[in-house]
C-alpha cells in the first residue's frame, strides 16, 4: 500500500500508513495461526480509515471533527460456523492472539494449510485524482457557506439552516486462506443541508444532500453545486409548510423517479440476501425461477456504477464487485451472496459480502439496487390516476425480512386528483408487503434515475453505504397511512 492522502490542514503531518508493514509474509503466518485449531477457511481484514466532518449551523462553523481508525478482523469458518475476533492494535503478538481466538470456533478439526497468496487486480470504478481529505479545510467550509447562503436567500421564511460535509478515505486489505489478496481504496464525500421554514406558527423542515465516491471535484459537476442542495432543502421545507393531512387507506400510488428506490431496497432487496434464503427465513426462499413480481419489473444490484455510493471495486471478502440480475421480467433469477451462502448454494460469489468495519463479520448486503426503466411516459402515469398519492421524497423504510411486510416514511408527497398533482401531504407512510406490492406494479416509466442521496442500510447492527434507484412507477394498490379517514 502506498501513502494515504496527506497534506492540507487536516493531515499535515505525514503519518506513516499504519498498514504499510502488512504484507503477504505477515498475512500467511497469521492465516496459518488462525487455521491451527482446525478451521476450514480463514480471512484477514485490515482496515484503515480516516475521516473528517464540518458542521455549519446558524451561518457559523460550529465544530470540526476528525477520526482515525485502524484495525484487523480475523474470521475463521468451519461448516456454517464463524469464529470472529478483532483488534485495533497491530503488534505481532496481538495479531497472533486475535488469529488464534478466532480459530477456536473450529475445535480440533483436520488442519488445512493456507494457499500462497495471489493479488487480485481490477479496474478502479471510483478513481479520484486527490482525496478531499488532502485539500485545505477552508475550501470545504466555503462549500458549506455556499449551501447555507443559497438556502437562506431562497425565501425569507427560511429561519434556520444547517449544512454539513463529511469525508472519508478507507483502505482495506483482504487476505484469504484460499489464496486471494485484494485491496481497495474507498473514498466517500457527503454534503447535506437541512432547512427549516416558518410561517404564522407553522414550521417544517426539508433536507437535501448527496454522497458519492469522489473528491471535491464532485461539486463542480452539473447539478451538484452546494447551492442546489441549499435551495432544494429550502424548497421542500416551504412546500410542506401548507401540507394537508394525508388520506388513510388503500389507493393508487405513483413513485417518483430516484429515491423511491428505497421501496425496492426494503421490499425486495433484503429478502434476496442469501443468508435469509439459506436459512429459509426469507419470503423468497426456494423461489428462484418463479414469478415474484409483475413482468414489468427487472431488478438489479450493481456494484460497478462509477463513483456511486454503493459501489465497491472489491467486496469485504475480497471478491470483485459486479452487476447481478435479481429479478428479470418478474422472474426471480438470483440472490445476493457472501462466501458462506455461495458455498451453500454451490454458486459463484456475487461480490456482496460486506461489513461495516473490521469489528464485524461480513454478511450478504446490497450495493446499488434498482428497478430498470420501462416504456411508459411519466406524465401518462400520473395522468392515469384519478385519486392517489405521488411519492417524491423518502426518509427511510423498514422491512420484516421473514414475511416482506414493510413501512416507508415520506417526507415530500402530493395528492393526485384527476391526473394532476394537487395538495402537498404531511406525515405519510406507505405500508405493504414486498412480493404483493411488486405484483401490483402496472406502469413503469422510461425515466430511470439513480438517487445520489445519502442512503445507509442497516442489518444486524451493521451500517453500509448503498445506492437506490427507480423510474416513475405506478402501484395499483398500496395502503397509505394518513390521518384522514375516507
Amino acid at each position, binding site marked *: 500500500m502506498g501513502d494515504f492522502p496527506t497534506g492540507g*490542514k*487536516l493531515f*499535515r*503531518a505525514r*503519518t506513516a500508513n499504519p498498514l504499510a508493514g502488512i504484507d503477504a509474509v505477515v498475512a500467511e503466518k497469521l492465516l496459518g495461526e488462525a487455521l491451527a485449531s482446525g478451521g476450514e477457511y480463514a480471512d484477514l481484514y485490515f482496515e484503515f480509515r480516516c475521516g473528517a466532518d464540518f458542521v455549519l449551523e446558524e451561518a*457559523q*462553523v*460550529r*465544530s*470540526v*471533527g*476528525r477520526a*482515525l*481508525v485502524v484495525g484487523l478482523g480475523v474470521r475463521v469458518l468451519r461448516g*456454517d*460456523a*464463524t*469464529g*470472529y*475476533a*478483532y483488534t*485495533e492494535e497491530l503488534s505481532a503478538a496481538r495479531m497472533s*492472539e486475535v488469529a488464534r481466538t478466532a480459530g*477456536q*470456533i473450529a475445535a480440533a478439526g483436520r488442519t488445512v494449510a493456507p494457499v500462497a497468496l495471489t493479488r487480485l487486480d481490477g479496474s478502479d470504478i471510483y478513481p479520484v485524482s486527490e482525496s478531499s481529505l488532502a485539500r485545505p*479545510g*477552508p475550501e470545504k467550509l466555503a462549500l458549506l457557506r455556499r449551501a447555507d447562503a443559497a438556502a437562506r436567500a431562497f425565501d425569507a421564511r427560511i*429561519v*434556520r439552516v444547517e449544512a454539513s460535509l463529511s469525508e472519508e478515505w478507507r483502505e482495506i486489505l483482504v487476505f484469504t486462506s484460499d489464496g486471494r489478496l485484494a485491496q481497495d481504496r474507498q473514498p466517500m464525500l457527503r454534503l447535506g443541508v437541512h432547512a*427549516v421554514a416558518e410561517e404564522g406558527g*407553522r*414550521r*417544517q*423542515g426539508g433536507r437535501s444532500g448527496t454522497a458519492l465516491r469522489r473528491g471535491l471535484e464532485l461539486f463542480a459537476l452539473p447539478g451538484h453545486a452546494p447551492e442546489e442542495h441549499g435551495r432544494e432543502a429550502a424548497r421542500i421545507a416551504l412546500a410542506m409548510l401548507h401540507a394537508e393531512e*394525508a388520506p*388513510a*387507506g*388503500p389507493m393508487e400510488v405513483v413513485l417518483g423517479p430516484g429515491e423511491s428506490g428505497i421501496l425496492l431496497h426494503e421490499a425486495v432487496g433484503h429478502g434476496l440476501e442469501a443468508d435469509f434464503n439459506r436459512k429459509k*427465513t*426469507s419470503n423468497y426462499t426456494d423461489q428462484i425461477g418463479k414469478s415474484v413480481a409483475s413482468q414489468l419489473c427487472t431488478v438489479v444490484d450493481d456494484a460497478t456504477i462509477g463513483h456511486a455510493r454503493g459501489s465497491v471495486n472489491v467486496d469485504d471478502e475480497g471478491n470483485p464487485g459486479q452487476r447481478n440480475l435479481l429479478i428479470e421480467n418478474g422472474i426471480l433469477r438470483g440472490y445476493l451472496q457472501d462466501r458462506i451462502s455461495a458455498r451453500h448454494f454451490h454458486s459463484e460469489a456475487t461480490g456482496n459480502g460486506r461489513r461495516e468495519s473490521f469489528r464485524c463479520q461480513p454478511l450478504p448486503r446490497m450495493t446499488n439496487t434498482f428497478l430498470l426503466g420501462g416504456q411508459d411516459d411519466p406524465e401518462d402515469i400520473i395522468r392515469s390516476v384519478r385519486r392517489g398519492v405521488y411519492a417524491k421524497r423518502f*426518509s427511510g*423504510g*423498514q422491512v420484516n425480512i*421473514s*414475511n*416482506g411486510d414493510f*413501512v416507508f*416514511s415520506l417526507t415530500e408527497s402530493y395528492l393526485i386528483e384527476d391526473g394532476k398533482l394537487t395538495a402537498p401531504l*404531511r*406525515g*405519510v*407512510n406507505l*405500508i405493504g408487503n414486498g412480493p404483493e406490492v411488486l405484483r401490483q406494479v402496472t406502469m413503469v416509466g422510461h425515466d430511470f434515475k439513480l438517487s445520489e442521496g445519502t442512503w445507509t442500510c442497516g442489518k444486524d447492527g451493521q451500517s453500509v453505504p448503498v445506492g437506490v434507484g427507480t423510474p416513475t412507477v405506478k402501484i395499483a394498490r398500496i*395502503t*397509505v*397511512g*394518513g*390521518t384522514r*379517514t*375516507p
Partner: protein
Amino acid sequence: MSRLPDARRCQEWAEEMLSYALAAGAQAAEILVRDASELEVKVRLGEPELVKDAGSRALGLRVLRDHRVAVAYTSDFAPAAMRQFARESVELCELAEPDPLADLPERHEMAREVPDLDLWDETAPSLDAARALRLARQGEQAALQLDRRVTNSDGAVMGRVMGATAFASSAGFSGGYRGTNLSLVVTPVCDDADGKKRNGYHWTSSRFASGLLEPEAVGLEAARRTLAKLGSRKIATCQVPAVFAPEAARALLGQLAAVVSGGAVWRKSSYLAAREGTAVASPLVTVVDHPLLPRAPGSRPFDGEGLAARPNVVVSEGVLRTFLCDVYSARKLGRRSTGSAGRGVGGGPQVSTSNFVLLAGKTPAADLERVPQGLYVTDLMGFGFNPVTGDWSQGANGFWIDNGSRVHPVSEVTISINFDDLWKSIDGVGDDLDTRSSVQSPTLRVSRVTVAGM
C-alpha cells in the same frame, strides 16, 4: 481471551492525553476513553453459527481554543501517536469559528465524586464462549420444542459486554467506572397458512447474570409470541383506541425523549419548543430521567461533560417541567445544564437520556384492554415521526380487540395521530413497567388513533 477492561488504566490514558492537549496549546480540553470487550455467540437450529470475542478501545477528544472547538477520535494509544494526535487536533480548532457559548462547564459545576451504582457483575467475566453457547442452545431448544408449528429459527444470541469508561476534563474532573451487561434473545419462525413466515422474539437483558431470565423461559415466551401471530391480517381503516404494549410504548417514549432535548429545542426542531410549564401529556403521565438507579441499564455516575448525574423530572402529571440540557444547549436557552450530556468517543457531548422512565400507574395492564373495539399494538415499524410538527404515523403489528379480548393478530396497518394529541389522549397507564432497557414504559392506552388498513 476477553481482557478485563481497566477503568484506572483508562483514566491514566485520559489524563495523559489531557496533558498533551494542554501542552499543545488547547485552552480547555476533555478526553473520553472507552475500553470494552464483547462476547457474542449465536446458535441456530442447535449448531453454533457465530462466536465473536474481541476487545476494543478508543479515545475521544474535545479541545477548545479561543472558543473554537474541534472534536477528534483515535484508536492509537502509542505515546508518540497520542502526542501527535493532540497537536493536530488543537490545530484543527483554527478551522472552526469562535462561538462565545462554546466552552467547558464552569469549575464549580463539575462532579466531586463518582458514586458506585453497582453496575459491574463480578461473575460476568467467567462466562466463556462454551457456556454462552450452551445457554443460547437451551433457549432456542425450548422455543423449537414448544409446538410443531415452530418450523424454523432465526437463532438465539447470547451477548456480554464488559466496559470501562474514563473521563478527564481541564475544568477539574477526572473519573471512571466499569459496567457489565448480559443479554439473550431467541427468534423462532413459524409458517403461516397463507405461506407467509411469521417471526417473533423474546429477550432478557441485565447488568447482572443473576438478573437474566432462564434461557428456557425466554425461548418459551418467544415461541408463544410467534405462534400468536399466526393468521395475522389487515383490518379495515378505522378510528379506535390503541393499547401499546410496554415494548411499543417504549418506542413512543424514545421519540418523546428526542423532543424534550435542549438541543432540539434551540434548533427549532421540536414541536415542544415553547411549551415548558404547560400540559404536554395526559395527567396520568409522569416521566423521569434517572441516571442514578442502581444496576439499571442506562445508569451513569457522571454525565458526558463531567457533571454530577442527577434525576430530572421531565413531565409531571402531564406538565412539561424541564427540557434536558447539556452545557451548550443550556447556554443557548439561558439556563443551567441538567447534567444530561451524553458522550461517545466518536463525537462531542450531546443531550442524551440515561434511564428515561414513564412511571407505572395503578391499573392492571390487562384492564386497559377492556374496550369495545381497539388495537393492541405489540410493535411499531418505520420512521414516520416529524419532531418539528409532531406528525406521527407508524407501521404496527398487534391484535384486534373486540369486546375486551384479543380476537386475532393484525399486521400491515399503520396508525396515525399527531404526537401531541397522542400524549394528551392517554387514558390509561398500566402497572407493568418494563425495566429491561434504558427507556422504560408500562402499557399505555390512547383513546383514539387512526388505523389505516384495508
